[in-house]
């Protein structure tokens, strides 16, 4: 959870919304001939009637000639979704429209609604094409989006298990399922927060609420389980609500505006989360599972860093050396608080003394300070 301010990712998304693209799906057709791209989807093909079209309004006329339900996407080079159409049944036709700027795009059909899909590269022609980014950075963003999506996908069953335990009224089982259900979220929190409305519903602490705002989500249930030690009808309803809200998150990861800069800043923000919330023990004040969140935050930051590293290395070798060292040092320090390195069973934070907390805080600062320079190392040439 973070205070209500725009994260770097959210800020980037705001800018993008002003300048880039809007996608929408329509039933009718309104575009002129050269702006219509016919997409013929089968179980093993994704044929497009043209590979180039003028920038601006474009319409995909989709026909599913295969045997499986399919989806069709228009994607940016870094796999961010421009627009999409799901649940196109066999033998049916659908129309998707979008406003696109000049540049390269991908049209993907996903028979069976799974995987990366069958892809076609297309181009919107015209002036004002965005400068092409280092393809390695597009790859890094695509890989990070894939990671963020996987975290959301893996979180849902865990959140459902947590919700089930709550609804069964099984306090002990719910306590056990609580921290694991949060890790995917914690690893990719800057992406989740970029949507603005989900974080307040699922990850707010009581002190983060505005007057009149209803307290929902993980921490509300944390308080019931550890402090009040009881589960009532309201808690059961909140458990269902949590799963619903997390499904919303899972569905929106693909459209998050992720850039190399927002990845780098997101990594730093994850460490900021640790510095302000976890090191102090505020985040998990009832369950004291702060170190699990801590580890997840560091893992998520490290993932973004590793993906950006090949480019950062060319621009600032010293920074990369320092970051490798400090990630290593912090991970080693965290390992002191778990018996088994393969498990996420960390020492309860109320058992971590002041001197040890300071050591953790110092380790976070040692990593976060150089990490704050990663964004510049990725954009500078």
């Amino acid at each position, binding site marked *: 959870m973070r205070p209500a301010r725009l994260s770097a990712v959210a800020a980037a998304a705001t800018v993008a919304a002003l300048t880039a693209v809007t996608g929408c799906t329509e039933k009718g057709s309104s575009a002129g001939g050269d702006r219509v791209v016919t997409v013929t989807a089968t179980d093993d093909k994704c044929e497009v009637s043209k590979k180039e079209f003028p920038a601006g309004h474009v319409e995909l006329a989709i026909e599913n000639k295969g045997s499986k339900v399919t989806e069709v996407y228009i994607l940016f080079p870094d796999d961010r979704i421009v627009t999409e159409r799901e649940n196109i049944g066999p033998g049916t036709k659908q129309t998707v429209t979008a406003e696109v700027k000049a540049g390269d795009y991908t049209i993907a059909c996903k028979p069976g609604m799974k995987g990366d899909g069958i892809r076609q590269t297309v181009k919107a022609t015209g002036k004002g094409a965005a400068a092409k980014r280092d393809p390695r950075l597009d790859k890094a963003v695509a890989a990070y989006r894939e990671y963020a999506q996987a975290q959301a996908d893996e979180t849902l069953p865990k959140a459902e298990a947590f919700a089930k335990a709550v609804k069964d009224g099984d306090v002990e089982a719910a306590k056990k399922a609580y921290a694991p259900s949060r890790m995917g979220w914690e690893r990719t929190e800057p992406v989740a927060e970029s949507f603005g409305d989900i974080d307040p519903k699922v990850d707010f602490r009581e002190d983060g609420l505005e007057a009149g705002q209803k307290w929902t989500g993980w921490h509300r249930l944390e308080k019931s389980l550890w402090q009040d030690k009881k589960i009532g009808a309201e808690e059961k309803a909140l458990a269902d609500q949590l799963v619903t809200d997390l499904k919303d998150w899972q569905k929106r990861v693909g459209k998050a505006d992720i850039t190399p800069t927002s990845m780098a800043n997101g990594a730093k923000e994850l460490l900021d989360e640790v510095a302000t919330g976890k090191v102090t023990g505020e985040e998990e004040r009832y369950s004291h599972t702060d170190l699990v969140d801590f580890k997840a935050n560091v893992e998520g930051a490290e993932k973004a860093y590793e993906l950006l590293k090949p480019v950062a290395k060319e621009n600032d070798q010293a920074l990369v050396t320092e970051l490798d060292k400090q990630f290593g040092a912090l991970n080693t320090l965290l390992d002191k608080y778990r018996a088994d390195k393969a498990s996420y069973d960390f020492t309860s934070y109320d058992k971590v003394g*002041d001197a040890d907390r300071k050591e953790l805080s110092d380790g976070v600062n*040692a*990593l976060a*300070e*150089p990490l*704050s*320079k990663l*964004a*510049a190392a*990725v954009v500078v040439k």
Partner: protein
Amino acid sequence: MTETSTGSSPSPSRRALIGWGGAGLALGAAAAGGAVAMARTGDDVDPVGADTGAAIGFHGARQAGIATPVQDRLHFAAFDVKTDDRAEFVQMLKDWTAAARRMTAGQAVGEGAYGGLAEAPPDDTGEALGLKPSRLTLTIGFGPSLFEKYGEAFGIADARPEALEELPKFAGDNLDRNRSGGDLCVQACADDPQVAVHAIRNLARIGMGKVVIRWSQLGFGKTSSTTPEEQTPRNLMGFKDGTRNIAGTETDRLEKFVWVGEEDGPRWLAGGSYLVARRIRMHIETWDRTSLQEQEDIFGRDKGEGAPVGKAKERDEPFLKAMLPDAHVRLAHPASNDGATILRRGYSFTDGTDGLGRLDAGLFFLAYQRDPRTGFIRIQRNLATDALNEYIQHVGSALFAVPPGVRDKDDWWGRTLFGKEA
């Protein structure tokens, strides 16, 4: 809170007449040579010609911040080292020196606080933009634990000064380890508290990954001046403190009592000093309920003028035998301590209130000396029976060896200790 004197009243030297004469807050730096007042900008020096808030020269044979006229405000920080990589640590000392050189001149650190890459955090944190140099001095010291923990790794084990041992336990000590010790220290003094805090904050930031702050202390209302022309400041007990302090102009006494001599050893410390830092909590509420007579008896001076018992004027020579045997001034006086004399540079502190609703206040005692064994330790042992002890408690303690000054733009803090290959 110790009383020092050589027995003769300080006589201003010729340099004093040129430099420190009439040194007030504004003019104190005039002697530092080429002191220029300037406003802090993100870019270059911008002399504004005023003398308030002037800059104290950073370069010199000795570090500024010791004999320098005492500024109004303090931010003192003790650091612990977190790297055993000598090259990395030395590089940090060089980076610190470069930043200190700029900040003491009223300039922003590195490439400034704004105007740089939008994607990167600025080098300087910015809160001192537009403020004058405010006589900022930054003074570095090395603690005994630096040699203990990193003597081998840094190749400085043999260079440890004999006198650099943890201070012994004194009667009445109730030390909090989280307010004591430290591998390094930086004393930041300035007339503007924001300038002092900015300096420590930026050094701490530059040091991240290499050093961490162990503890820090803010101070106000200097309790001892090194400029006898000024009115002697009062401590939080309401008494004048530091009447007989060594003046910044008393070259002879500085040489004798403050600066480490060439022959004292080790060589790297020649021209430096030893710094004792003690956080002395005052039991303010009980002190305030103490009768005037008892207060004056405890100090051995009267409260209004500051005159020693039986004398009329503050600077009259004290007659120790007229004071009670446990009077503070009597026990702390050089005549009671084989002549032991130290240069005091302490500040009052008030860190809000404690959990019992009492002021968490007192004296952050800073004293420079040529050798702590014949300086602070000698005097503090003699204060075991000090009547003042009923109203004070030492809760923090540290000792540092303070290297000589940074001589020029190519020199750096600690070069004489670490610079063999540099």
